[in-house]
């Protein structure tokens, strides 16, 4: 039996209304104390979120409340467009204003590295790890977001989220072979992580430095960072809705990321 587009959309909305499809917020609260990535001091730095009240039912606006806000494009839960990285500078539609709207909606596969990240805060996701994962869970389908569930979001509000030490930041992430595998052999849409960057904290010291940024964006794929709530998603079967702001020529954007997933599927 074929389902018309109208029927498909109606069924989905009915599922959300009826509770058989759950809407899950994967976004951290955008606040001035939410940590931003820290680069070595010779580079320009990412500005945190700031909010300044213009009026709050007071002399500056008796009946209305509103704030001026400022931040970097890569502050809070945010989206990395291909143009964010030098490898993606010539990618067609590589800035957030040009990203095709079809890319705002993609299915996701959730890879759980919670145990590994808890044991080793510098845990590296390798091709071997992904192949072993596939052997246990099934193949990673094409055109999916790859979401790395590390439970790092549970560190938000503590210094151990950025986890800065004398020798730099410490957080898990993939190596270059893993990224090539995901991009070229599994044709992923992008990589979503709970940490402050798609790359590991120590990834600037890898033989191929910052492989997630370099390989994802060089091949027109996207990044999602500072996600939360990945523990509520099934391994397969969720759909990610991620729509960056339409900033002219923008390299990324803070955004609200949500997932739709079958109820009782986690």
């Amino acid at each position, binding site marked *: 039996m074929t389902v018309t587009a109208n029927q498909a959309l109606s069924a989905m909305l009915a599922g959300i209304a009826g509770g058989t499809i759950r809407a899950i917020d994967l976004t951290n609260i955008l*606040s001035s*104390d939410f940590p931003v990535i820290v680069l070595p001091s010779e580079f*320009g730095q990412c500005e*945190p979120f700031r*909010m*300044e009240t213009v009026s709050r039912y007071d002399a500056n606006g008796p009946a209305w409340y509103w704030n001026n806000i400022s931040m970097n494009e890569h502050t809070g839960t945010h989206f990395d467009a291909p143009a964010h990285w030098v490898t993606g500078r010539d990618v067609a539609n590589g800035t957030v204003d040009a990203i095709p709207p079809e890319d705002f909606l993609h299915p996701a596969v959730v890879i759980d590295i919670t145990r590994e990240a808890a044991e080793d805060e510098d845990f590296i996701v390798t091709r071997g790890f992904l192949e072993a994962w596939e052997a246990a869970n099934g193949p990673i389908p094409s055109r999916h977001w790859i979401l790395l569930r590390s439970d790092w979001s549970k560190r938000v509000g503590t*210094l151990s989220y950025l986890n*800065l*030490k004398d020798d730099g930041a410490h957080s898990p992430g993939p190596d270059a072979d893993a990224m090539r595998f995901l991009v070229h052999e599994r044709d992923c849409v992008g990589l979503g992580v709970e940490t402050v960057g798609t790359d590991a904290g120590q990834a600037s010291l890898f033989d191929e430095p910052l492989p997630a940024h370099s390989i994802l964006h060089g091949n027109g794929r996207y990044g999602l960072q500072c996600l939360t709530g990945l523990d509520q998603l099934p391994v397969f079967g969720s759909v990610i809705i991620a729509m960056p702001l339409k900033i002219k020529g923008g390299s990324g954007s803070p955004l609200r990321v949500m997932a739709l997933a079958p109820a009782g599927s986690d």
Partner: protein
Amino acid sequence: MTERAPRERRDPLARKKARHTPPSARSRAMHAMSARAAMGRFVLQVCTKCGTATYPPRDACPACWGELVWQDCKSGGQLLANTIIHATTDLYFRDHLPWRMGTVALDAGPVALVHLHRDLAPEDRVEVRLMLDRGGNAALFALPPDRGFDMTDPQLREFIVPVQGKTVLVTDAHSAIGLAVVKALHDTGAGLIVAGMLPPARLADADHPVLRLLGVQVVPLDSSDQVSLSEALSKIGGPLDIVINTARHVRSGGVSGGTNIVEQRRAFEVAAIGLTRLAQSCGPMLAGRPHGAFVDVISSDALTGSAGHAGFAAAEAARLSLLQAFRHEMRETGVRVLSVFTGPVEDEHHQSVPPPKVAPARLATAIIEALQQGREQTCVGDVASDAMTRWLADPALYAREKNL
């Protein structure tokens, strides 16, 4: 001194103590004297014609009608007579009765009516200081000439900012300057030192030995962020007496070239807007205190700009301007606003600046001294002192020389 003074306890039902300031109306000549007193100078007017030194300030020489100029003078004298005032209609002095006054024959010439330290008796040799009263106006105060005099004299305490037992906020405590200030406050016997930690912080930052001293409380604080500031202040248990604003954003760079707009904006956020935020948040807290004070560490580049650190100097100039307005606003509350000028500091931000540089510990000592002498304006180190002297002498020439 490492023994902690006990924290102040208060009757929760007692009506808040109203604070008053001394009478403030002064002549223009007296304001000129106050401006010099603010720098810690002991000056009198001396006639250019007959050489007579005169006090109180006047518009012409009382002996020959000649022109008067300000001169630094010898500050010694001899106490001639004293009296104790037991009744007055003035609200400020009523709060502090009995009040000792005396007449001193100044070594510089005139006989002056002075406020008197309690340990002095007629015919004693005295050292007279030109100090600022709680309303910011100059007044002569006679002290025992030896340095070991009793600092707890209640009348003297009206002219200074005691540190012992007080709650002090250091806005950026993990910088080289901040750590030195926290250490100096601890050594002086401050009651509670709230040490602001600027994000991002390393896990181990709060483990610094200075920040683990008894009486030091570490709080995250970014004075460029209102939310962070509010949360930090909410964590201070009890009243806040003194704020020492060590926050600054030192970066080199020019205007048309070699400049990083993001860094320049940050310098303004920290130095200028940050000062306004602190003033708005802390001003009312300080205003209710018997010895409230706000100390701002400021670059002497604020006076003239600096070609090599253009954005930083501009932000510091804006800070100086705001500080003047803040001082004016605080006058009627009795809160003292102190500027401590410094040149380049021996820290990570001035690696490429040749000596002389100010050691952070020296800057910290100068801050404590400025408080304990109630001095509104202090220059620490050769660079800042030289800058102030040249700027006072010929601002146009100094601005040109500084930016050649």
